[in-house]
């Protein structure tokens, strides 16, 4: 069993990071990566169920979905899309820096990823809070308050007839973006731990699996948003 460890004793950092049940670092990395992908596949199914619900209700209540979608802030949603894809770039660059043994760069890119992640959540907070306010709808004189809670949700005027449909959209909006935001909050927590490890200089080109694995998670969260953005903010902006 310890053949590999003994043989590669010269590579001290690699060997100390090699768990006893693996023969080589490459085998260990393969297993770690595969395990993360298996988890991400379960995440695909988790979000997939909500996306399926969205598609069915969108077919049934298209009119309400169009009206409610137009009430979402496209500018803030668009900025968040750029912020999140930007954070995917910085985490990819962080993995690259770890791969090539650039410690300070790794730390910097991970910190930048955290800043972008927090920026996303702050923007999301302002978007969420505006849904609690009573305000005029974009078209006509309707007054709307879009948080779908009891005694809070309110739609009057020309949209009153499709109020219940709009409410379904807003339930899905908060469920989908809420679960997405929860994933980001968890991700930022994990990121803090990994950034601390990077600051301590624990990563080398031989072993940087936590950075790589965190990157996979963060990119997945980015992909969820890549689908959420057009489906929620861009149901129908023409006509």
């Amino acid at each position, binding site marked *: 069993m310890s053949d590999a460890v003994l*043989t590669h004793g010269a590579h001290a950092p690699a060997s100390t990071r090699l768990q006893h049940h693996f023969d080589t*670092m*490459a085998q260990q990395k393969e297993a770690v990566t595969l395990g993360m992908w298996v988890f991400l*596949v379960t995440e695909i199914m988790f979000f997939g169920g909500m996306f399926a619900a969205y598609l069915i209700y969108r077919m049934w209540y298209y009119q309400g979905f169009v009206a409610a979608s137009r009430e979402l802030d496209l500018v803030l949603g668009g900025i968040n899309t750029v912020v999140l894809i*930007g954070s995917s770039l910085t985490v990819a660059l962080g993995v690259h820096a770890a791969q090539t043994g650039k410690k300070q760069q790794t730390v910097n890119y991970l910190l930048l990823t955290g800043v972008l992640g927090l920026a996303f959540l702050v923007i999301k907070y302002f978007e969420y809070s505006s849904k609690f306010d009573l305000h005029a709808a974009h078209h006509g004189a309707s007054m709307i308050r879009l948080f779908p809670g009891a005694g809070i949700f309110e739609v009057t005027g020309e949209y009153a007839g499709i109020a219940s449909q709009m409410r379904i959209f807003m339930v899905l909006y908060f469920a989908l973006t809420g679960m997405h935001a929860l994933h980001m909050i968890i991700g930022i927590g994990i990121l803090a731990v990994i950034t601390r490890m990077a600051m301590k200089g624990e990563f080398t080109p031989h072993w940087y699996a936590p950075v790589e694995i965190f990157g996979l998670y963060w990119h997945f969260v980015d992909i969820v948003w890549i689908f959420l953005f057009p489906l929620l903010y861009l149901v129908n902006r023409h006509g």
Partner: protein
Amino acid sequence: MNSRMDAHAHHADLGHEHVTPLGVYFGIFGALMALTAITVGVAWVNLGSLNILVALGVALVKASLVVLYFMHLKYSSKLTWIVVASGLFWMMILFGITMADYLTRGWMISPTILH
């Protein structure tokens, strides 16, 4: 462990079997930004029922770019490919069978309580 295997293991042991050039990352980021602009622009054009297909198509291309290059699937083992493909396959079952049901039942109207 014989010496040939050991030499192979030693080589692979270095762990950096593939380092993506930085230019690829920036290129993919540029492509993702361009595709985001396209998906926003298309939403303002009336394509009828094609709108959602274009939106989902663009999102699929963006997701593929992220998976292949940012998540390094392009350089991952076949086993990883199989796991990813099985995930997509199961998701197709989820969507395919659900939609085959809802889209083909002409007699099943939407709950009318919501107009």
